[in-house]
């Protein structure tokens, strides 16, 4: 393991993380809900009465975040190296799996660990593990 000190941005990461934590805190304190993105988004696909607007507004806020950002500054780099077939496979896998496993990086990773849920800790360790393994296989076994 070699650390890429040039790419390492601890303060921006910590600051952004604190903002994500504030969002998760606001959502449980005010709305009484877990800020789990896959769950909020997935719930829109099986609309229940009285349960649509808050989901749509939350997702709308996320999608409009770059536009709000652009009022003040240029957007940070968003570099997507995967080609279209790979993006489609990855998207399908993320969509099915986050619903099957009842959460993703936000619901299990941030909120679940914060409330010390054993299920979420196991889920986070599981997706971190296959995330590390997948990148290892793609980059160092098959790839380049």
């Amino acid at each position, binding site marked *: 393991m070699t*650390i*890429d000190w040039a*790419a390492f941005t601890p303060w*921006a*990461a910590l600051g*952004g993380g*604190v903002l*994500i*934590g504030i969002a*998760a805190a606001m*959502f*449980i*304190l*005010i*709305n*009484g*809900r877990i800020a789990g*993105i896959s769950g909020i988004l*997935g719930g829109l696909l099986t609309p229940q009465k009285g349960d649509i607007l*808050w989901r749509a*507004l939350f997702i*709308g*806020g*996320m999608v*409009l*975040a*770059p536009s709000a950002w652009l009022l003040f500054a240029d957007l940070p780099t*968003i570099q*997507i*190296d*995967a080609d*279209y077939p*790979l*993006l*489609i*496979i990855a998207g*399908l*896998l*993320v*969509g*099915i*799996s986050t*619903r099957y*496993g009842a959460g993703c990086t*936000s619901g299990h990773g941030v*909120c679940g*660990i*914060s*409330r010390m849920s054993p*299920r979420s800790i196991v889920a*986070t360790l*599981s*997706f971190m*593990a*296959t995330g*590390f393994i*997948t990148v290892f296989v*793609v*980059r*160092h076994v098959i790839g380049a």
Partner: protein
Amino acid sequence: MNKYFVSAFVTGLIFGIGLLVSGMANPDKVLSFLDLAGAWDPSLAFVMGGAIVVGVIAFTFVRGRTHSLLGAPLKLPTKKDLDSRLIMGSLGFGIGWGLAGFCPGPALVAFGAGEMKAIVFVVAMLAGMGIFELLERRPKATA
């Protein structure tokens, strides 16, 4: 009730800005974090750390309560068992995350930035969630 809707929107906005500030909305940076054997960028551990420190305070505060500060019922997950769905789903999610560098939140933010590849990813992700719903509601076959 309007306050809850304003809060939902503002929360989504802050969440999205947090993803942009932190670098999580950039798949290249996410993959550099997941690439332990390459030139490793540990930044994303700090994203999780920052978020969890704030999260712990909020979730400790709500422990034992039944309603939010504005009186909404607290909807906390009630499942406790470590079943195969949780583990298989999480393992599968990690593979998809490692292939593209996108998890659901950052994908929505990159979608909002108008990145064509993120739009394709989000459409595929929604299709995946739709497939899950269809499989869930399929009548169980009797062998």
